[in-house]
């Protein structure tokens, strides 16, 4: 990878990687660290990216996801919870709408959270998410379904249709 290729990749994908890291971690400084480590990893091992296996953006998001999980493990914040682990209740009363959404997404278990962020915000296909998360397609579908179910429950006050899609109405 030449210097200009690297600069081009950085300019094209830095925002996507930063936003993903920020949504996952919730800290600007930590998200910047993840972006830096992600691109340094690309610089050190450009051969790791195979264009036949997917887009550069998906590859970089995969590296960023691993870095986020590594950071959580180091900070003892990450436990391999099953993807159907119960979500701690989030009190969104009095919060701004965007704050409430952020709190609800961050309350999801890690495996549901990364699948949801990659699907809803980065608009990756199920196959790409499966490749990035090293899970099979059915597992990704299941995690996404549970994540949306949990979000519908938590964010019910902000939704017009309250929980009838997944049978969560009370």
């Amino acid at each position, binding site marked *: 990878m030449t210097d200009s290729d690297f600069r081009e990749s950085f300019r094209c994908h830095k925002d996507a990687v930063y936003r993903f890291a920020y949504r996952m971690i919730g800290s600007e400084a930590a998200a910047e660290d993840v972006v830096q480590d992600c691109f340094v990893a690309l610089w050190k091992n450009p051969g790791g990216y195979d264009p036949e296996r997917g887009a550069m953006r998906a590859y970089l998001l995969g590296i960023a996801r691993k870095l986020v999980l590594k950071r959580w493990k180091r900070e003892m914040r990450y436990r391999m919870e099953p993807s159907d682990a119960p979500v701690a209740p989030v009190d969104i009363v009095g919060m701004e*709408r965007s704050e409430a959404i952020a709190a609800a997404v961050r309350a999801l278990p890690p495996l549901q959270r990364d699948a949801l962020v990659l699907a809803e915000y980065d608009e990756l296909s199920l196959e790409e998410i499966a490749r990035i998360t090293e899970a099979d397609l059915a597992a990704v579908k299941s995690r996404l379904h549970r994540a*949306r179910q949990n979000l519908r429950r938590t964010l019910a006050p902000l939704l017009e249709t309250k929980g009838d899609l997944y049978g969560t109405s009370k």
Partner: protein
Amino acid sequence: MEHQNDPELHELLREWTVPDAPASLEARVLRNRRSWWGVLIHGYIRVPVPVACCLAALIILGAWRLASLSVNGCAPARALTPSIAWPKIPATPRAATSCAPDSKC
């Protein structure tokens, strides 16, 4: 996308916007890459343990071989006893009467 089957939730989630990466990040990332000479100074290589063990064994063997060669290749110094060999000077016969008895030679 085929998996976005909940448009209402999707719309709501879209309300959470996140700023782009700060401009300072570019300088930080580009500075963090090392040049080739930087790698010579700060770089490291990962060596598998069996290879490292073989290399260490070869170095030890080589050092031992060198040491043994230097011992066998030179003869030990003999103890020297200091001696002075004085050159023998042949005695020259003194002239019996080279001067006259009254002369002051």
